[in-house]
């Protein structure tokens, strides 16, 4: 399926979860925030919410201080 990821059209596996999508895109355990079709997801939703054809996902890498 085709989705819009951070402003770019990309191919993604059908029914892929947000957690799997993040993993696939190299975020691993990195601190991220995710907006799906304009709604910010709770981290507790990453394992269960699935991406759908034509959806828009925005992933922001959180970089703190130190």
């Amino acid at each position, binding site marked *: 399926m085709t989705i819009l990821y951070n402003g770019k059209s990309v191919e993604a596996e059908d029914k892929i979860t947000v957690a799997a999508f993040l993993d696939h895109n190299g975020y691993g*355990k990195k601190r991220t925030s995710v907006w799906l079709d304009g709604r*910010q997801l*709770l981290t507790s939703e990453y394992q269960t919410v699935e991406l759908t054809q034509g959806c828009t996902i925005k992933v922001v890498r959180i970089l703190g201080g130190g």
Partner: protein
Amino acid sequence: MFPDAKILDIDLSKGKVDVMTIPGETYRLYPGGSALGVYLLLNKMPAGVDPLSPANVLAMTSSPIAGLPVSGGSRLNITAKSPLTGGVGDSQSGGYFGAHLKANGWDGIAITGKSDKPVYLYIDGDKAELKDASAIWGKVTGEAEEIIKKEIGEDKLQVVQIGPAGEKMVKFAAIINDCSRANGRTGMGAVMGSKQLKAVVVKETKSAPAVNKDKLMELSKRIAAGVKENPTVAGLQENGTAGELGGNHEAGFLITRNWQTGQFPGGWEKITGQTMTETVLKKNDSCFACAVRCKRVVEIDGKVDPRYGGPEYETCATFGSYCGVDDLEAVCVCNQICNMYGMDTISCGATISFAMECVENGLLKDDGLGLKFGNAEAMIKACEMIAKREGALGDLLAEGSARAAAKIGGNAKDYSISVKGQEIPAHMPHFKPALGVIYAVNPFGADHQSSDHDPMLSEAPDTDARKWYAQIGLWKGYEDHFEMDAEKARFALETQKYFSVADTLGLCQFVWVSGWALTGPDDIVDLCKYGIGWETSIYELMLVGERRINMMRFFNQREGFTKADDVLPERIFQKIPDGPGKGQGLTKESFEYVRGLYYENAGWDSETGNPTDGTLSRLSLDWLKKL
């Protein structure tokens, strides 16, 4: 009952060692760290003294909770009037000294005067004596520590000391402990050097037990268990603070070539924490009782001695991307020079990058050194010259970039990226705009560890960060953390107060106060209760934090500081020219808008930027009005 503070009161001019006691009801208002430090400064020092004169007060402080067996709980604070900024100086370091100072029964040391010969202070329990330091004056930190241990005949000592840079009063000289940890910022080492005080040494001893051992151990174990679960803190353990350097590059906000851009293509991979781990890392090191173990120890045969630790993120940035240098070995060598000679790696690397830009623009002659962006060899040589104030160039740059720019003239001042004379650390306000406001208003110059950083406000609503922020009154999340609105002014001020609690109690923000750290406000309250029986609240602690900031601000007011000093360099307002951050910038309008709201929220006069009488009264600081 809150415990009394026991302070060693040293007059080096008279060679006198006295004891000062601060009653518990007073100590509770300024419970350690730089709150206690600036309290001592304001009580013992008149306005207008030369920072490098005997009248300056150098305060080394622990806290009532130092020495408890808990991660990130025993940092050492050092405060004095800063020779770099002319205002209050302040810096913290990790290690073991703070815990052992408290374990010996001391909450702090206040040092005035100037010795007529080099001395060091030796503390063993109640006994404190000044000893001749002639044999170690001029020695680098590693050598001096060895000689001290041999002379005292004891290996279990904690030594904080200056190196030759402090002796020569390099304006950003640091005070080093364990040969590898620095009270780096604001030139505290120069103050110590001006007093001919080479070192303060404490004998290691056992800390007092917690009042509720079981509960404290429960908290301590929970924190330790959280290390592996927390992606940021686990990353610190794996790759140190420089582990996020690549993330900053990828986002387009890695300060490069003296703030000319925010990306370092082809270079960043070579100077990251990951590369350090894979190549030169010998081992991790720890601070007192800390489970995080983020400290790096590197070794390069024939070049870098593990005794001098390893570079942090700031050091990899300032001696790396700031200078356009992609050579990790050179970064490690400069880190070692700074720890041997006692210099702040942030100001030193940033001042060299300033000099590189001046040379490239024909404003500064380097006498064939080749001081241009990317020249690692010249960077190392410049670092050594600064440490020794060698030659006209070394002597000039040892004054820091702001003073050097004034001497160079022309548009050199445009290349000094500093606030109140202190070089800005490696986090771009273009990316973290509320942090830019803190850079401007912070009493001791630009500092990245005085408040939380904007991107944390984009964390999901169910994260610890957002829960903890809500507990200190910060409710709003941001999809676009670049936004500057009224709530950003509150974020800047409230997290500054909260981080100020950490700098008072000697807490490491990697464990305690950052949104990404391991604990929240309730945990700090529990730590105080289980550790020393202090039945406090987050309300009282936030007042403590706010009081510290206002005392510092008042200190600066006496020295003539105003709103005109709360500004950022012009370059900060220029948009990033290329890379992923292209076009991003902090506008003057949004900066001034949020700074204005910050003043109002803080209870500071909008014309002068100084605390109003009402604010001082609200914080139980009426006594300041009589000074």
